[in-house]
């Protein structure tokens, strides 16, 4: 099977992507065979930051060779979308935490451009920017890179956030995200860092150990709504947080970094731009796996209280500060 399919889950009422092409992705090739290095199979030219359509996409840009159908229970559609790879740097051994701030500033501008560009396709409803870092997260290539999935539907977690924030607004006439930010700033105990335009904190309800959210202080829905200064400060806080992660246990911290922005079509006045980081590290040498309870019930068990994660990350930042590492 080479085309991507969307199969409707009648109980969860959400799409499942079935994409056989993904099976062909190379897994942890030798360094000299890195396809993302300059001269590797994907990158014929030197670059500063480069973006290309994934060779092994979960969603395909060409209309899949599938006739949509549905019956009383099941529903099937072609998985039409766009999957891109974002190369952060030519330096194979770098990472978000080790890149110069200048490089992250450029990256933020590229992410904004991709959000606008991908969002301009009529078949795209949601643009999802993310990075997986570390083998325990499932990374198959070590070269510093992120990915973007442009979806033909609004993914279920985003939809839930949209609905929850709309309901909250109906009831209280204020933004749920702004209210959370106000609460965290007044309590301070889960705040990790803030700059002029953004705040990083461990949410009260964090599901993963070291789950951390970055909220914009201003109520806005997406990167294109930010001022130039806000984009530069976003780069600064991302660098600070990824450095803090690496300094917690003194090794390259594995994480998932996901951008939650408003959908690219329609009006979503109650949605609020933020970035979420999830980790599977629950101690220096212990992993928190998502196993039966999380997968089978959807209920997460977080073994590390958010307040403890917050203290560890604040301590990590203080350590970096004392060593003059930022």
């Amino acid at each position: 099977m080479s085309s991507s399919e969307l199969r409707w889950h009648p109980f969860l009422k959400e799409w499942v992507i079935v994409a056989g092409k993904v099976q062909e992705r190379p897994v942890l090739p030798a360094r000299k065979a890195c396809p993302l290095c300059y001269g590797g199979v994907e990158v014929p030219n030197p670059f500063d930051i480069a973006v290309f359509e994934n060779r092994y996409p979960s969603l395909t840009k060409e209309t899949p060779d599938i006739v949509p159908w549905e019956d009383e229970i099941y529903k099937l559609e072609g998985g039409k979308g766009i999957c891109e790879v974002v190369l952060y740097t030519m330096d194979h051994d770098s990472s978000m935490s080790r890149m110069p701030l200048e490089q992250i500033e450029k990256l933020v501008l590229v992410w904004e451009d991709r959000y606008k560009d991908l969002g301009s396709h009529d078949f795209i409803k949601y643009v999802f920017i993310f990075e997986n870092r570390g083998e325990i997260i499932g990374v198959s290539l070590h070269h510093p890179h992120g990915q973007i999935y442009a979806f033909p539907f609004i993914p279920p977690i985003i939809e839930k956030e949209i609905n929850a924030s709309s309901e909250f607004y109906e009831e209280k006439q204020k933004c749920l995200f702004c209210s959370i930010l106000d609460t965290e700033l007044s309590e301070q105990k889960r705040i990790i860092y803030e700059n002029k335009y953004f705040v990083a904190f461990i949410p009260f309800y964090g599901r993963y150990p070291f789950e951390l959210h970055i909220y914009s202080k201003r109520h806005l829905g997406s990167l294109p709504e930010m001022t130039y200064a806000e984009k530069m400060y976003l780069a600064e806080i991302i660098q600070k947080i990824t450095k803090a992660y690496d300094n917690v246990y003194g090794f390259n911290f594995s994480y998932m970094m996901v951008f939650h922005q408003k959908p690219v079509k329609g009006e979503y006045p109650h949605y609020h731009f933020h970035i979420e980081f999830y980790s599977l590290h629950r101690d220096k040498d212990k992993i928190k796996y998502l196993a039966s309870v999380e997968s089978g019930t959807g209920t997460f068990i977080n073994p590390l209280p958010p307040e403890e994660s917050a203290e560890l990350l604040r301590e990590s930042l203080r350590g970096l500060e004392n060593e003059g590492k930022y």
Partner: protein
Amino acid sequence: MRKWKMEKKLEVKDDGRLMYYYEFELEEEANEQ
């Protein structure tokens, strides 16, 4: 604050996939205001 000028160059790979090279030039150290 650094002010970046960004340019994008499009290339089409042999198999039809699109690739974008982003190039940057530092325009100025701009005041935030």
